[in-house]
């Protein structure tokens, strides 16, 4: 069992992940490519819900958010764990596992936002809620990455034949 923090992007199940209030010209796929200029943007107002489902149970230790550094930058974000179907009407009343006010430097490439591991133990989905943007009617994200480790099930490749059995 490795204890180092790895980028969990490969464990994100794109088919089960979704975003709400998305401008269809700036879809969720834009989060996954490496180009910082391609954004996921909100549509009706400056709130965004982005739901990430993992293919395996994971432990999260860190978060990296990249966003444009202008009025579209998220101002306040929250994280929720293991929510199956969450919408704007009920997300405000749910207890957040993590919340923070975003400062300018927090949304740059490579900046790790630490997460409390006890709250992000054994989870299979994370919902990121952008409550408001810095200013204006649009919030945008360029990339969201989670760090931590997958909780490994039985790894068949490690099974060894017992000699002489």
């Amino acid at each position: 069992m490795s204890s180092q923090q790895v980028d969990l992007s490969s464990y994100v199940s794109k088919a089960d992940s979704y975003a709400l209030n998305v401008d269809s010209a700036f879809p969720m796929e834009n989060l996954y490519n490496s180009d910082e200029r391609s954004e996921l943007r909100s549509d009706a107002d400056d709130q965004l819900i982005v739901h990430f489902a993992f293919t395996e149970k994971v432990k999260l230790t860190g978060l990296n958010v990249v966003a444009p550094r202008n009025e579209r930058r998220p101002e306040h974000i929250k994280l929720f764990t293991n929510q199956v179907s969450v919408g704007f009407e009920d997300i405000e009343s749910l207890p957040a596992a993590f919340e923070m006010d975003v400062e300018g430097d927090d949304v740059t490439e490579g900046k790790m936002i630490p997460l409390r591991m006890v709250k992000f133990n054994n989870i299979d989905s994370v919902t990121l809620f952008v409550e408001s943007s810095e200013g204006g009617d649009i919030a945008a994200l360029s990339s969201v990455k989670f760090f931590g480790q997958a909780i490994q099930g039985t790894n068949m490749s490690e099974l060894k034949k017992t000699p002489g059995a």
Partner: protein
Amino acid sequence: MVCLDNSEWMRNGDYMPTRMEAQHDASNLVCGSKTQQNPESTVGIMTCAGAGVEVLCSPTDDMGRILSATANIRVGGKANFAAGLQIAQLALKHRKNKNGGQRIVMFVGSPVEAEERKLTKIAKQLKKANIAVDIISMGESDMNESKLNTFIETVNKNNNSHMVTIPAGTLPSDVLITSPIVTGDDGSGGGGGGGGGAAAFSEYGGVDPNLDPELAIALRVSMEEARAEAERKAANDSNAGGESKSEEQEAAAAEEPSSSRSSSSRRSRSRRSRSRSRSRRSRSRSRNKEQDAEDQALEAAAAAASAAGIDIDDMDDDALLQQALMMSMADEGGDAGGSTGASGSGGSTKFIDKDFMQSLLSGLPGVDMNDPQIRAAMAGAGDEQDAEGDDDDDNDGEDDDRSSRRSSKKRSSKRRSSSRKGDK
């Protein structure tokens, strides 16, 4: 999620046969086409009036459940448009299969009471939650139009929400089958529930736009114009009484996409005669009576004539008919029966002379010249031939109109099925 209006307003009879029944028909069409468009698509049914907003059937792909839920709806109470939308949103949120888009199809047949501000707020919520809303407005459109338009504009995202206003007197399913609500946003896979492939390219009058783009566009434009006209006419006539209704029906008949020439003319004739019968009910009734009387009278006349020494074989049908009519009238004259019957049987030529007849009849005891039956008979005997001629002329004229407006391709077999539906 299909949200039906089952308020008391749906008892209104401005759609055939009632708003409620028409709504059932339309919702069955919508549900059928939606479930067939994709095997994963599910449809739920709810009502927004009665005791309260009620979900009758959670989203399912089982058409049987949907139909039985629809069939059990009772009319009553006032519709709550806003609450209906919010509960539909909840029902959609807790659907089983999260793949695919969410959509609310809302039937509105009663005045929307919610304020515009509240509606806009709900619209924004729905838009944020990626829910598309289609509105089918049936009646009360004057009051609702501005509210609903604002609502649809707000909720619309990439042209995924539509509003269709059904003009009074038309079949909602006929209008819907060509609308984006049934055909889908991409314009394909439509009409699965309705007429199988019948609705393919129905937006273009049944012509594949790829094969003949100009014709297809022309047909589409002409159909849209016809519908707009019917709508306008319906709005103009909504204040008038029964007379206007028949006009609406004619407008509807004219607006309906025609099938083959023969079937369209037959249909228009039957529609016409139906609408005429409203405005000229008294006349047609008396004519029916005459028809029966004629049959009986013919036989009686034959007997009487032979008794009076007249050779029936020498007389043609018309003469026989006139004679019979006269005898039957004389019978109505009560005790005068026997004598006039005898004198009348000889004077078949004089019967044509109205003045003579009038003086003759008025001279008879027990005959009231103001009796409507006698009047009708008098008028009918002379006019019948002419009237029938008129009818035929009218129909021909209408058919010519149609044929000039619509080209021959219009009457493809695809249309035929929709006309059959309309006749049901």
